[in-house]
């Protein structure tokens, strides 16, 4: 680690790194994100280390453990450069073959390549895979090339060049103007114009100011921020440095939720290395600008994603939001002007400075510029992180990139915006994805979670799920959120148990209006959204539960019944063996029967039946 004292020091270091990289004939990039960790990428990494040592190849082959490339469904992911061979579902046993075939002979290992689902031909590099083809991976592409624990990797792709430009060629006001011209809007959910926030904070009276990076990412189903902070923490540091310079802040915090240990660890390593290199601390690059960052941890509270609650949490208090009549940009952390931005927002900043606001604003739509990273999850074939230009339609994301439906069930809706958002029915999938269009159809962009739902998903159950989630996460300070959500949950519970009546829906809607109107913070104010949007687009499902005591998607246990189709059952008896309540009777090779009175409706029989003979309705 060198100590950098000027821009020329920085450039000399960068040159030295690039020179050293030329000495590598191959780069093996293994994804080290949390998803691939669950799939065993550590074993793959260890296997590579062993093989490379054994073959004496450590000098000419660089092994990098990188950030998440996004195609989590297919992990562990390994990419070989310079050929750009993209290997998926790699196991430790495959490693010797990769070394002997690809590294030593430049040949592809066929069974590790992605197979096109339509014509079954093998695809070599990631750019041609349908999942990646229409993406515009301005931010995520760096994850493939950077080992988050090596500052050198970030420098090799041009890192901290934007900081140098800002510190020596731009005044703070010019930086704000550039961000304004780019049209960048906050990526945390509300889409507030970033430059406007910076400007208000800059203008706020006071000497001491703070910048905060919000990596609380509590929306269930969203993990974009985790992957960015885990995979390329320096990009966030650079963004915060630039923002702090523009605003006039000298201290910053990165708040990471407790459930993201790897992101916390990697960000901490990046900070330590940046300090050693002189990129954080006093007189950065010899510019006279001081700035340092500290890590802060969450304790397990979704409400701490809200800016005032997050700030309270950093101050060592409970995460209770406060009234926002005076915004945090004027009175935030310790009462001082504080600028809080989301991880993805910060990550976009160095990009805009490097390539210019004109280039950035040419991507996206009129009012929503740039790209957005979405976590495409749920009942869709290709799950993972996708980065797309604003304005792309939901249909393109779900079908072209996502590969469409999974296990033969028709996709019926997609949920965006987490517990503050709503569901969008399949009939509206031509909606372009941007801040305003999504709001118009009753949802919000949110932080980027996109949960696909199919015919096997009960929308009443989804509404109930979100209300119970928010009940758990409510801080409990204000009456409408604490009691109102409780009563909404009770009504939805009754409906899913077949005990709803004609007044249930109107009472639900009345409650929803008051909770939205009178809650103190964003959590309560947007809590009714999932329920209201489910009612707006899927009211017949609610009515079926209430009037016919029936769950059309066959999900709500009190309303469903399991049975075995006589014609399809082969009498193999697998279901009877796995049934926890011994509710299945039948002779070998003869059609089995489920005793409805003792059936616990756990679904294990359906999961294990190879003849698809178990029916639910």
């Amino acid at each position, binding site marked *: 680690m060198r100590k950098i004292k000027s821009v020329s020091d920085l450039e000399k270091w960068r040159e030295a790194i690039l020179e050293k990289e030329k000495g590598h004939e191959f780069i093996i990039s293994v994804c080290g994100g949390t998803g691939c960790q669950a799939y065993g990428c550590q074993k793959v990494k260890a296997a590579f280390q062993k093989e490379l040592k054994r073959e004496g190849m450590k000098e000419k082959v660089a092994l990098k453990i990188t950030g998440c490339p996004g195609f989590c469904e297919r992990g562990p992911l390994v990419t070989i450069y310079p050929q750009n061979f993209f290997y998926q579902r790699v196991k430790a046993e495959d490693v010797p073959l990769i070394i002997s075939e690809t590294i030593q002979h430049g040949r592809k290992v066929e069974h590790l390549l992605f197979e096109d689902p339509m014509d079954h031909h093998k695809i070599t590099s990631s750019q041609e895979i349908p999942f990646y083809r229409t993406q515009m991976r301005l931010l995520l592409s760096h994850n493939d090339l950077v080992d988050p624990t090596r500052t050198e990797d970030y420098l090799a792709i041009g890192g901290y060049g934007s900081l140098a430009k800002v510190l020596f060629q731009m005044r703070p006001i010019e930086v704000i103007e550039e961000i304004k011209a780019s049209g960048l809007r906050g990526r945390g959910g509300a889409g507030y114009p970033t430059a406007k926030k910076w400007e208000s904070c800059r203008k706020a009276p006071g000497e001491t100011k703070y910048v905060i990076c919000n990596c609380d990412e509590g929306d269930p189903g969203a993990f974009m921020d985790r992957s960015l902070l885990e995979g390329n923490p320096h990009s966030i540091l650079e963004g915060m440095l630039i923002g702090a310079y523009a605003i006039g802040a000298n201290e910053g915090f990165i708040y990471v939720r407790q459930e993201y240990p790897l992101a916390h660890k990697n960000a901490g390593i990046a900070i330590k290395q940046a300090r050693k290199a002189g990129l954080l601390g006093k007189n950065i690059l010899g510019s006279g600008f001081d700035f340092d960052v500290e890590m802060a941890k969450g304790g397990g*509270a979704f409400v701490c994603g809200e800016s005032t609650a997050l700030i309270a949490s950093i101050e060592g208090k*409970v995460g209770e939001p406060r*009234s926002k*009549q005076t915004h945090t940009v004027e009175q935030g952390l310790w009462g001082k002007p504080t600028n809080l931005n989301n991880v993805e927002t910060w990550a976009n900043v160095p990009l805009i400075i490097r390539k210019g606001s004109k280039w950035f604003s040419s991507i996206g739509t009129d009012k929503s510029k740039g790209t957005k990273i979405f976590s495409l999850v749920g009942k869709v074939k290709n799950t993972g992180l996708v980065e797309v230009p604003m304005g792309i339609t939901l249909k393109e994301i779900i079908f072209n990139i996502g590969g469409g439906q999974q296990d033969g069930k028709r996709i019926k809706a997609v949920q965006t915006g987490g517990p503050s958002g709503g569901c969008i029915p399949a009939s509206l999938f031509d909606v372009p994805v941007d801040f305003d269009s999504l709001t118009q159809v009753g949802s919000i962009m949110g932080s980027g979670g996109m949960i696909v739902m199919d015919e096997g998903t009960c929308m009443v159950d989804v509404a109930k799920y979100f209300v119970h989630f928010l*009940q*758990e*996460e*409510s*801080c*409990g*300070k*204000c*009456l*409408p959120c*604490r*009691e*109102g959500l*409780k*009563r909404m949950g*009770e009504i939805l519970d009754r409906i899913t148990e077949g005990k709803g009546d004609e*007044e249930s829906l109107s*009472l639900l809607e*009345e*409650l929803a*209006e*008051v909770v939205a*109107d*009178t*809650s*103190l913070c964003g959590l309560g104010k947007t809590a009714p959204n999932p329920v209201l949007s489910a009612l707006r687009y899927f009211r017949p499902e609610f009515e079926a539960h209430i009037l016919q005591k029936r769950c059309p998607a066959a999900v709500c246990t009190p309303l469903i019944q399991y049975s075995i189709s006589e014609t399809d059952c082969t009498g193999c008896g697998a279901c009877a063996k796995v049934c926890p309540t011994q509710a299945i009777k039948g002779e070998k090779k003869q059609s089995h029967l489920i005793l409805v009175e003792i059936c616990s409706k756990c679904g294990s029989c359906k999961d294990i039946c190879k003849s698809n003979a178990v029916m639910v309705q």
Partner: protein
Amino acid sequence: MERKTVNITIDGRSLDVEEGNTILLAAREFGVHIPTLCYMDHLSPYGGCRICVVEISNNGGGKTFIDTSCTHEVREGMVIQTNSPRIIRARKMLAELLVSSAPNVKITQDIAARMGLLKVRFPMEDNRCILCGLCIRMCYEQMDGKALGFVGRGMGRKVSMPFEVRPETCRLCRGCDYVCPGVIIPCQGVKEPGELCGRCVRIEEMPNCCPMGTFGCFCEQNPL
């Protein structure tokens, strides 16, 4: 000393009120009474019960938002409605939520009566603490006891002393008991001609919501 004033409109009346005031107090000065529950003079406003909500427009334009009048400060040009249809609906529902949670607390019944609530459509519970936080604010701000606080969160939130043991800093000043709205039990009405039920003055029937009562610190020593 000349105090700076700002001009606001409350329920159609144009008023010059002192800058830095909250809407609640500014309104009171001019005889406009907004109902409250968790607000008490000389304690910091909390904004937890939301009963005192009003509909606000910052500059008289079309767009309005709702906020609690006890915490929201007046600004020049603000237009405030204290009894718009939206506010009335909100207060009525909030009262319904309160009463269904704590029907045997006098103040929730008072508020429900004031909002004209006749029917409660939720299953009734019997909580005695309405989580208004007055006892905590009294303990911290006026009596310097620092003995009470909120624990837990969401529906499980309650008032307690740390580790459910009375700390040394508690001087048994009974300030918490003094401000607690839940301590007063609703009247059971007239019994014999001229006789009142007297429940509100009989200490042995004090409900179990007050932190002091729960921990039995002083109820043995009858204060009366």
